[in-house]
């Protein structure tokens, strides 16, 4: 990776120059996000005919309080971290919470009409958020330097693959919900190990590619003016494709297979800077798609639902979900029905996979676009941290993590808007779901750690880094100052 690295931040100004940590900006943006969320909650309550009480303000303040704890932790443990990542996450998570609460209200009403017992999901999601933030703190405190993760790369990889495969090996009663075998359910508690496996595998692939990068760089034959990689270097790509296909067959989960494969391709591309790898990867991908389409009926079903949701509207597993999502988005139009004034509960799974449709209905294209912009800023800041960080592993891991967010958003929003066939996947931070939230907060903690390492002035980081590296890097090449 060609990376111009600048050991001297600040042009020639002495070594004691202090970089702005920008933590104040972060707190300000967090407060702004809280204001937006409190306002959203107020609108929902007002439009739903709930009584407007002061408690909404308390909810808002406690939300700010929870994130202030996270902010203070960042202040202490990653003072130079990016100031925008946490506020973006807070805003997305808050909008998700408000949306889940809003759909709860509608479902409660319907349940009351039909005399069914109803348990709201919003309090549980709040609980998950708090747990996730605790985990976020733990990661930030425990991992002082992201480079230590390379030591556990193979462990991470092993656990990651195991976690990914675990639901597939367990009996369907424990692992299958709505046709996707991605759960491990023990009693009332359900977790999706795949969400965590994603991060573990990223760590593994990043470390693996750092150590084996030269393999991918060596050029093979030139055919058609393009340097093709040597056939024997294709191993990892074949492995990733195989793993993705295996997940797909075992777990019946298109989304995860797509995510894993996309991440590996992207990491290889970033590590080698050679676009040819994307082509090389897309060929087995296309082949896999064709094979999957011919072998599995549910893939054919999803494709038909995608091409024409209305044609299969009445079939079991047909286009009902997609069609409802499109109806919802259509109802919202450009400016939306207003928070609390639409009927997002008409869309099935509107709290999880189809939350983008619910948001699109209530705040319209303008609102949904702004939410996507927030995702974009989040991913961009992650990528920026990856660009600026000095070590290759950090670059790959940061880029991979940021890409994982982008890819998930693309797959889920693309599916909801029928740009691509629908694959069950949660929108990061927005959707209801403990595993997704926990995993994504870990991801954000790692991103903050990397961006902190990137912006931290060298004086602070150097002595420690040199202590670690001395035996490896300096013994052979140290130049004793020659008398001139």
């Amino acid at each position: 990776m060609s990376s111009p690295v600048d050991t001297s931040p600040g042009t020639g100004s002495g070594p004691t120059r202090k970089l702005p940590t920008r933590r104040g900006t972060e707190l300000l943006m967090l407060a702004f996000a809280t204001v937006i969320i409190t306002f959203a909650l107020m609108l929902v309550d007002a439009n739903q005919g709930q009584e407007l009480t002061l408690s909404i303000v308390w909810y808002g303040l406690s939300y700010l309080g929870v994130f202030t704890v996270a902010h203070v932790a960042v202040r202490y443990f990653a003072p130079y971290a990016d100031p925008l990542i946490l506020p973006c996450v807070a805003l997305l998570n808050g909008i998700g919470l408000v949306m889940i609460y809003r759909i709860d209200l509608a479902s409660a009403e319907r349940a009351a009409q039909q005399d069914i017992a109803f348990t709201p999901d919003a309090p549980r999601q709040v609980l998950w958020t708090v747990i996730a933030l605790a985990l976020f703190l733990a990661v930030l405190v425990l991992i002082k330097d992201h480079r230590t993760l390379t030591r556990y790369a193979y462990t991470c990889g092993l656990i990651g693959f195991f976690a990914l495969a675990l639901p597939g090996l367990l009996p369907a009663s424990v692992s299958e919900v709505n046709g996707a075998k991605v759960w491990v359910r023990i009693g009332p508690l359900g977790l999706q190990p795949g969400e965590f496996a994603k991060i573990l595998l990223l760590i593994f692939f990043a470390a693996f590619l750092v150590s084996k990068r030269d393999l991918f760089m060596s050029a093979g034959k030139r055919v058609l003016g393009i340097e093709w990689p040597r056939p024997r270097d294709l191993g990892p790509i074949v492995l990733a494709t195989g793993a993705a296909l295996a997940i797909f067959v075992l777990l019946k989960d298109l989304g995860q297979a797509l995510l894993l494969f996309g991440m590996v391709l992207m990491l290889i591309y970033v590590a080698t800077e050679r676009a040819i790898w994307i082509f090389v990867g897309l060929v087995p991908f296309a082949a896999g798609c064709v094979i999957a389409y011919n072998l599995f009926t549910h893939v054919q079903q999803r494709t038909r639902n995608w091409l024409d949701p209305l044609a299969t509207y009445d079939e079991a597993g047909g286009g009902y979900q997609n069609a409802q999502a499109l109806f919802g988005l259509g109802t919202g139009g450009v400016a939306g029905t207003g928070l609390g004034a639409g009927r997002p509960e008409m869309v099935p799974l509107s709290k999880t996979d189809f939350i983008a449709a619910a948001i699109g209905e209530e705040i319209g294209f303008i609102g949904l676009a702004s939410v996507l912009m927030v995702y974009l800023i989040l991913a961009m800041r992650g990528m920026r941290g990856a660009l600026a960080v000095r070590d290759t592993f950090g670059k790959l891991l940061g880029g991979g993590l940021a890409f994982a967010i982008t890819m998930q958003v693309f797959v889920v929003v693309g599916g909801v808007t029928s740009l691509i066939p629908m694959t069950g996947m949660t929108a990061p931070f927005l959707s209801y779901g403990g595993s997704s939230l926990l995993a994504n907060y870990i991801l954000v903690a790692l991103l903050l750690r990397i961006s902190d390492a990137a912006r931290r002035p060298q004086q602070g980081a150097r002595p420690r880094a040199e202590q670690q590296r001395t035996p490896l890097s300096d013994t052979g090449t140290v130049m004793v100052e020659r008398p001139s």
Partner: protein
Amino acid sequence: MPELVVQLTRAGFLALLWLFVLAALRVVRSDLYAASGVRTELPPSKRDKKQPKSRGGGGGKQPRQLIVTHGALAGTRIALDDRPILIGRADDSTLVLDDDYASTRHARLSMRGSDWYVEDLGSTNGTYLDRAKVTAPLRVPLGVPIRIGKTVIELRP
């Protein structure tokens, strides 16, 4: 709620969301000019031109930056301070080259007194100052190209 209030709050919420996005972009923008890990190619702005003047008392032209003029990293600038600059393929080099003709630890630029010296760190393909092969530390005048593999760098004021 009266209809007007509903409509106003609806628009207000959307405006607020976009204000957040704009505020975030402002932070991004201000960050572009703040010092950060990597100094990417900022166009030679007025700020750069002013700098030598403000420090003008030092006598003569002092190299203040290192510029890559040819090779994959062309356009990269590194601000110089008094610390040595390591050049090579190793990850912890100051200028990390991705060049098949460069060695892991290829060359070093260091400051003695007020001059910069280049020395070869036992590279396979050698380091060239202008046309001359660097065998012992050589003083690097301003604007004289140093060739390392396919990469050419220069010191600039």
